[in-house]
């Protein structure tokens, strides 16, 4: 099983900046053919704080391997938990969480 997504979330002046690094091969159709592996990539990423969506991304195979994301949002407190979920083409989902610092 793939490694958990690494998440760093920092609160500064009311704005939370999140940097996340998901662990995924992100094989596009071309690459998979060349490597003789199955096509698989993350298709949907969503991040939530207190049950509210703060980040939502539908993606294609052209995100880089081990996709990195940076995003910002308002309306969260220190110590709140951010939960990041991704789903890939095979329907595998993975949930990772971190505390906002």
């Amino acid at each position, binding site marked *: 099983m793939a490694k958990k997504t690494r998440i760093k979330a920092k609160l500064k002046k009311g704005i939370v900046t999140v940097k996340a690094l998901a662990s995924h091969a992100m094989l596009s*159709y071309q690459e998979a053919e060349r490597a003789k592996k199955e096509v698989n990539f993350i298709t949907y990423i969503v991040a939530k704080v207190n049950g509210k969506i*703060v980040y939502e991304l*539908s993606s294609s195979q052209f995100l880089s391997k081990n996709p990195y994301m940076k*995003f910002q949002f308002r309306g969260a407190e220190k110590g709140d938990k951010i939960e990041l979920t991704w789903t890939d083409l095979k329907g595998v989902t993975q949930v990772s969480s971190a505390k906002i610092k």
Partner: protein
Amino acid sequence: MNRRNFLSLGLGALAVSMAPSTLSAINFRDTKPKAWTATKVDEAINEIFGSSKLSEGKIKLKAPDIAENGAVIPVTVSTKLNAKTVAIFQDANPETAVAVFTVPENGIIDYSVRIKMAKTGTVTVVADVDGKLVSASKLVKVTIGGCGG
């Protein structure tokens, strides 16, 4: 079923799913499956936003002029406009759609991702601001040799 029917069907379904709560999650993979197989930027934009009429606006796209490694190209899109949806496209790969962001209520549009490009191409970002499509694009040179030339 022809194309026109398909589109109106999709819009109808979207309207229904949006009705109970505007906060509900939208997975564009499910709602707009055609956009991900479109081979032209115009087509993909049309599939996602329902129109491909773009206008220049206050949206910033940050990408390198020359990318030595086409597998990892950092792209940042930011705007202060009140956009609902932001999407990234490029024209170097077989399909053009890269990512579609749905901006939540408390979201700040300052998104960075890393994308892959097979060769030199143009990266385009499009934001939906109150039904108007604001876009920016930039040419990124990919030099896979790694000499940075």
